[in-house]
């Protein structure tokens, strides 16, 4: 049950009296974090479409990786701007008309196309609950919101193969244990032809690019909609995908 998970920036008035470092924060003891890790891991394995469990697993296991990401962001001028300005990617903040009017090949137009083709929305990301530091919680949230943009940058659709490819890239880039787990377990659900494609071309490409690319969280995407996609890829040091994947068969296991 994912109930109504809002990830608004403002505090939900009902829970403002709870002692939390940020709206939606739930204080947990180490024992509870361990239980959550085990429980969410089992739940996510049983039902991979329980994105909230994947999110919780990421939060309980990602502390060191988040610290590392924060350092990288602080050392990068654009990343530092993001940490201070705290932009959010949501339908309410995106100017969809403007983006639709941009030329083909521009980052904004391609992102919009990605959202339409795969029938996803940037508002479907779970809020952060179990990270016990306000800045790290923002970085986690930013990572989730940038995920869709990564799909666009890498040219990967949201089917299983595309998701696994993006996970390999993210695992190499961020070092989040949840990404590594998804990267290892995701392929178990692929059929043999896709597995072959993954191991021979997509996988190595994703890993290599993940390692050599600039930190994807350090880009202020909201100010780069007009930039051409190719240009942005070059700036980030990402090669275009070796295989063009279609978005037509969504959620294919």
């Amino acid at each position, binding site marked *: 049950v994912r*109930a109504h998970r809002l990830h608004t920036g403002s505090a939900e008035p*009902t829970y403002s*009296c*709870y002692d939390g470092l940020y709206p939606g924060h*739930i204080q947990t003891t180490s024992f509870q974090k361990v*239980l959550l890790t085990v*429980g969410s891991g089992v739940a996510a394995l049983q039902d991979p479409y*329980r994105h909230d469990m994947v999110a919780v697993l990421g939060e309980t296991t990602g502390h060191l990786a988040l610290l590392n990401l924060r350092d990288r962001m602080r050392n990068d001028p654009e990343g530092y701007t993001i940490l201070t300005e705290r932009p959010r990617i949501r339908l309410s903040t995106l100017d969809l008309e403007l983006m639709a009017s941009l030329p083909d090949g521009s980052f904004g137009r391609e992102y919009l196309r990605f959202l339409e083709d795969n029938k996803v929305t940037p508002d479907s990301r779970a809020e952060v*609950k179990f990270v016990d530091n306000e800045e790290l919680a923002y970085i986690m949230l930013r990572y989730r919101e940038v995920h869709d943009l990564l799909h666009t940058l890498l040219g990967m659709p949201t089917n299983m193969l595309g998701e696994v490819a993006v996970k390999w890239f993210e695992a190499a880039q961020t070092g989040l244990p949840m990404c590594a787990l998804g990267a290892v377990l995701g392929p178990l659900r692929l059929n043999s032809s896709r597995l072959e494609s993954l191991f021979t071309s997509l996988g190595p490409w994703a890993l290599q690019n993940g390692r050599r690319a600039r930190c994807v969280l350090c880009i202020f995407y909201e100010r780069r909609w007009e930039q051409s996609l190719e240009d942005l890829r070059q700036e980030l040091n990402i090669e275009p995908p070796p295989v063009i994947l279609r978005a037509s068969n969504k959620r294919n296991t």
Partner: protein
Amino acid sequence: MAASLRLLVRRLARLSHRSITSAAANVSWRSGCCLGPSSSRCLSDAAEDRSTHFGFETVSEAEKAKRVYKVFENVAQKYDIMNDAMSLGVHRLWKDILLHAMHPQPGARLLDVAGGTGDISFRFLDYVNYQQERQKRRATGSSQSLSWQDISDKYPEEDRPQESRAVVCDINKEMLKVGKQRADSMGIISGVSWVVGDAEELPFDDDQFDIYTIAFGIRNVTHINQALLEAFRVLKPGGRFMCLEFSKVTNPVLASLYDAYSFQVIPVLGEVIAGDWKSYQYLVESIRKFPDQEEFKGMIEDAGFCCVQYFNFTGGVVALHSGFKL
């Protein structure tokens, strides 16, 4: 409107005959001067001024009802699974013991308040059907030595079974929906009705039911005294009030284990199974805010019930309170 006025007048009359305890004094008697078209407005203003507890938080009374509704709306789909997970299946034993203590006979009318997903009502129907089968078997058994003609004359009439009925009343439509789905999947087509209603203001006439049960629901009611008074009203004279609720554990070792389990494990289970930490945090906190066995017994007696008793299960984790309207 008329119903709430009647309620008010009756309550005033009853309370003038009995000593008012500190709990009952919370109800604002200044509304005595507000009888008339403005009485409902008077009462609702009063509700916003007064505060109560929502778990460990303090909220206005009007807000509590809304938030409790939201909690159960969120957890309805996973309610039964969560009960099994949290209590490791023991809640089924507690409910079975309630039925055995109740020992309903065929023809009884049960009102299951806060009955939500129907656990008590389904058990009630099973129990009375079983009792009915036993009675039939005994009746046919006693006619074994008669002639065939006499036996066929004495066969219990199949077309007039004693009709036992359970009414499940809950304020939350989502919980009732889940209950109805369960009834359908269990193949129960008659004997249960599903009614949306507030325990503090039941949509039934006086003296209607033989048994009133409220299992794990009364601690979520904003004005427990009002719910008890309503229970008294709708029961027939001789009717029985039964309440199953989480209560105080007296043994200190068990109490600390229980607390640790409640606060450490249950919200995690809520997050993993139902995707809702906060609702289960509320549930374990609301248990701590509920009065203990003796205090609750006093509240039941104040509502007019006699022969009030309580039985502790699992060391006091759950208590069954029972009283009669005489």
